């Protein structure tokens, strides 16, 4: 399908307006012209026909006529042409006479002649001569009334008169119509523009309002002017926006409630856990001296308490992100040193982790959160992937500013394709059978949030060699 170049609403409105104006102007002019033309011509015709009839009736006829007599009648009538001068032609049997130098007229048609001879009444016809000038040709049979019956005398008289004056009048009218239509159309542009403006302004308002809503300003409303369809549309828009705002605010409230609930639950869990966690070592120590079953039970309680504490801590952290309460405490750090410290603290500095750390790369970031991110990525790689884990750090200059790129690749089997899209989901477990893993299930979600807080991105993929590759890309200088 051919796409027509889209015209603006304003252009279309003005074009439609002008089209309507042109059609009405042309129609009016045409009808007026036809009516006026008919009226003008009819008057001339009627005058001519009646004058000729009057003249013919007063002509003394001495039948039968000879050529001289015919010539005299014709010449007499020719002088009496009123109001327009006419040429008179007489036909009587084979005799022909004319008030002009030409014996017969060039404009009297056979049709007119036939009409006149068939009925002894006046007949007329508008014709144009070979030069294109308009003529009125009137034909009339001279009659006598012996017994109140119209008897044709055999004499037929034709009068031809030019309609130049009438033609000029009509032409002047056409000219006037033309002259009036063009400025009329030009003037029509003004109301067209006004109409377009009055239509377009609400449309423009609406577009602006829709854009503003799209940007999240749900309290946007349009001023309703008048009571036309556009005002109705504006009212509908406002009602829709109101409904949308209400449902969004309800959703937000519900979300805030859910978030607060998660935070409150986690918070409430911390207090009993604090007491329990403080005494787990007591249990562990005591377990050595107890019978195997009791010892196993105590160790289980101790281990689970530890896991629960990690889970609650992670939940608190997630709810801080959700409430947007997490903030960056930025510091300038040497990236290689920070990575080294993170690995050192967790005793990962053996052959299991291979690092590629360029020296002299300084970054502005939150060291605590950076430590969490790196520890989680390397820890995951060791736990779910396999040694050796390669940690590569590099700085790259990009148009938007220098970036810090960190790649953590393991040597494990990689991530299953169906798992990949959900890898950062909360509580997502790659292995459905193993419902409880060592971690809380929130590790990667927290890691991603920490990276986002720094204005960066974190992506997971499978490397060419088969292992999983996590790529962290964040600004070298994060904004607080």
């Amino acid at each position, binding site marked *: 399908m051919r796409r027509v170049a889209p015209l603006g609403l304003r252009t279309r409105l003005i074009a439609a307006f002008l089209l309507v104006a042109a059609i009405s102007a042309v129609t009016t002019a045409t009808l007026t012209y036809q009516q006026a033309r008919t009226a003008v011509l009819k008057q001339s015709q009627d005058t001519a026909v009646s004058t000729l009839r009057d003249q013919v009736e007063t002509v003394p006829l001495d039948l039968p006529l000879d050529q001289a007599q015919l010539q005299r009648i014709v010449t007499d009538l020719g002088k009496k042409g009123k109001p327009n001068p006419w040429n008179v032609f007489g036909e009587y049997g084979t005799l022909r006479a004319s008030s002009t130098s030409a014996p017969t007229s060039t404009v009297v048609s056979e049709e007119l002649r036939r009409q006149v001879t068939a009925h002894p009444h006046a007949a007329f016809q508008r014709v144009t001569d070979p030069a294109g000038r308009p003529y009125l040709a009137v034909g009339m049979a001279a009659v006598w009334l012996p017994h109140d019956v119209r008897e044709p005398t055999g004499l037929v008289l034709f009068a031809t008169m030019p309609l130049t004056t009438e033609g000029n009048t009509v032409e002047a009218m056409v000219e006037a119509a033309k002259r009036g239509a063009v400025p009329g159309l030009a003037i029509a542009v003004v109301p067209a523009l006004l109409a377009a403006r009055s239509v377009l302004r609400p449309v423009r308002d609406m577009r602006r309002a829709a854009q503003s809503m799209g940007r999240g300003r749900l309290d946007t409303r349009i001023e309703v002017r008048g009571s036309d369809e556009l005002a109705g549309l504006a009212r509908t828009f406002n009602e829709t926006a109101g409904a949308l705002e209400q449902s969004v605010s309800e959703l937000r409230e519900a979300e805030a409630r859910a978030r607060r609930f998660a935070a409150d639950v986690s918070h409430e869990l911390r207090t009993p856990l604090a007491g329990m966690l403080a005494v787990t070592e007591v249990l562990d120590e005591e377990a050595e001296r107890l019978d195997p079953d009791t010892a196993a039970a105590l160790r289980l309680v101790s281990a689970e308490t530890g896991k629960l504490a990690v889970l609650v801590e992670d939940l608190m952290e997630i709810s801080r992100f959700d409430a947007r*309460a997490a903030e960056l405490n930025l510091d300038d750090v040497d990236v290689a040193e920070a990575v080294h410290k993170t690995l050192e603290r967790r005793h990962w500095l053996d052959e299991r982790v291979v690092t590629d750390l360029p020296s002299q790369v*300084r970054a502005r970031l939150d060291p605590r959160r950076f*430590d969490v991110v790196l520890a989680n990525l390397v820890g995951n790689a060791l736990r779910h992937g396999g040694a050796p884990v390669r940690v590569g750090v590099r700085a790259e200059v990009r148009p938007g500013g220098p970036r810090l790129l960190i790649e953590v690749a393991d040597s494990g089997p990689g991530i299953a394709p169906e798992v990949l899209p959900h890898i950062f989901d909360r509580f997502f477990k790659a292995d459905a059978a193993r419902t409880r893993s060592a971690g809380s299930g929130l590790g990667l979600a927290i890691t991603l949030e920490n990276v986002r807080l720094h204005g960066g991105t974190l992506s997971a993929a499978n490397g060419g060699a088969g292992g999983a590759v996590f790529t962290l890309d964040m600004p070298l200088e994060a904004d607080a």
Partner: protein
Amino acid sequence: MPRVLLIEDDPSIREGVGLGLRRRGHEVAAAETGEAGLALMGTFLPELVLLDLMLPGMNGVQVCRRIRESSQLPIIMLTARGDDFDIVVGLEAGADDYIVKPARTEVIEARIRAVLRRLGTPAGSRPEVEFHGELAIDRAGLTVAKNGERVPLAPSEIKLLLHLSASPEQVFSRQQLLEYVWDHSYHADARLVDACVRRLRTKVEDPAGSPRYIQTVRGFGYRFGPL
């Protein structure tokens, strides 16, 4: 073994932490409210206070300020709220460290030991009292005087000042200071350093001018001097 005063309103934590610390040989006294804790201080004479941030009546920050008015006793905040705001408020009030609940006894004990660790460098060729501008630092007596007047400092503040002034003009990163002063090799939290520096400055610097003794080196950390 250190005598620890635990001010905590929740009985399970009070008992749990008390039990854990006693098993490790600490002498622990527990108080349910801030008022009771302050009253106990006179009779128990603790060497360190473990202070919950949220207490009925007088809250942890107020208790901390009250203790600081008269004593240089080391204070560790115990907080269930790990939010940055709460931690900073606690540190600004004069706490030497903070522990986010829940925490294992070993963590709590490690923090206690770090805060209590003997200060000072072995006496060498250095004079016992050093003079830096208007500051007189007595490394043996662990006292600091400004214009001859003694400045009361919290343990973390003294440690920080001693560490920085031992190597004037050397720049230390926050991470280095954390490791030397707080023994935090496992939890890099620059806020401890920043809060402590702020407190130290209000005590030793001239409030009108820019910091003279403890200067910020943007992008790197802090240094002492040059005066």
